[in-house]
């Protein structure tokens, strides 16, 4: 498959990279480094993409694997760029801009693994799919999701 096909596929799905990097990068420099690393890894892995899975799922997995294995600073996120955008990452289409921003902020407060799990859940992935991408059992995904939702509800309630 050609370079132009690859670029086209990534362009269509670039929101995945943008959204996930926005949840983990601590500053603009780190964000740019992660973009580069993800694209480089995707470009190297592109020949192995056989099309038996969706490209979006393939890219989602690769993006998560790359983010988690990169060296990142363990500080509070400094840049707020992706929190101020108008688009919502969650399933509820009626969620307003401010609420989406608050939810993103709350998601950034929880542990890194929990962030990945809840983001996949909000993106509509089923528990077995999440389990398969993370390498954990469906049962553990359910347990974790239950706990994460409680945690997020606490964060959001505290803010009100």
């Amino acid at each position, binding site marked *: 498959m050609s*370079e132009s096909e690859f*670029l086209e596929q*990534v*362009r*269509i*799905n*670039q*929101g*995945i*990279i*943008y*959204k996930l990097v926005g949840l983990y990068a601590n500053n*603009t420099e780190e*964000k740019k*480094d992660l*973009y*580069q*690393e993800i*694209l*480089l*890894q*995707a*470009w190297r*892995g592109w020949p*192995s993409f056989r099309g038996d899975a969706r490209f*979006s799922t*393939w*890219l989602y*997995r*690769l993006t*998560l*694997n*790359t983010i*988690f*294995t*990169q*060296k*990142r600073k*363990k500080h509070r996120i400094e840049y707020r*760029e*992706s929190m101020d*955008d108008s*688009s*919502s990452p969650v*399933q509820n*289409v009626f969620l307003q801009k401010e609420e989406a921003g608050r939810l993103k902020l709350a998601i950034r407060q929880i*542990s*890194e*693994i*929990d962030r*990945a799990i809840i983001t996949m859940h909000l*993106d*509509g*992935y089923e528990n077995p799919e999440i389990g398969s*991408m*993370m*390498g*954990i059992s469906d049962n*553990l995904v359910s*347990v974790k999701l239950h706990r994460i939702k409680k945690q997020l509800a606490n964060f959001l309630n505290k803010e009100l």
Partner: protein
Amino acid sequence: MNTDQNRNRTNDEADEDLSSLLTPTGLTRLSSKNPLLIIKKNLFKNMVWAVIICSMYLFIILYFNVWQIRTIFSIILILSLWTLFKTYKEYKKIHTDISPIDPLLTELKRHQQSITRWMHAQQRAWILIYPFCAAGGFFLGGMLGRGNTLETFMQKPLAIPTLIITIIVLVPAGYFLARRLFKASFGNHLKALQENIKDMENEY
């Protein structure tokens, strides 16, 4: 809204920094800061240095016709060649590409193991090779510095205690320095990997 619509809607968000890379010229500008790539480059540099240093050891063994020097440096040479071989095996084992197929937990463990193995290899080198290096360096330095034979140099009353102190001080100092350097470079990253693995394996 169904899952597909939701995914499509959220997946078309864009960022200028990202979009600028999504061109044929953008792809050529990509550079990697993958920690395993950095480790792999370090291992390669170590191997190059090891070859140069082993050649020097060989030269010392051939040039100095003193059995003590020859014995010590032969031991160092054998240990260095063994370390070089282990380093080469480690180097071959490290895959710097991120898997788009393996689950996150598998990928995290692979990275953690590679980094830990590398750390142990560095520590092993300090413990096994450097006592002999310190002794060899001491003998050679004493001989060349004083212009005496090794026997004459070693007969001096302070020679043996100085040798012991040199080994006792240099080896742990080197070992802890290597540990400190490793921690400064990869300590936080390794800790983050371990925390995330633990978080995923924690059932409760």
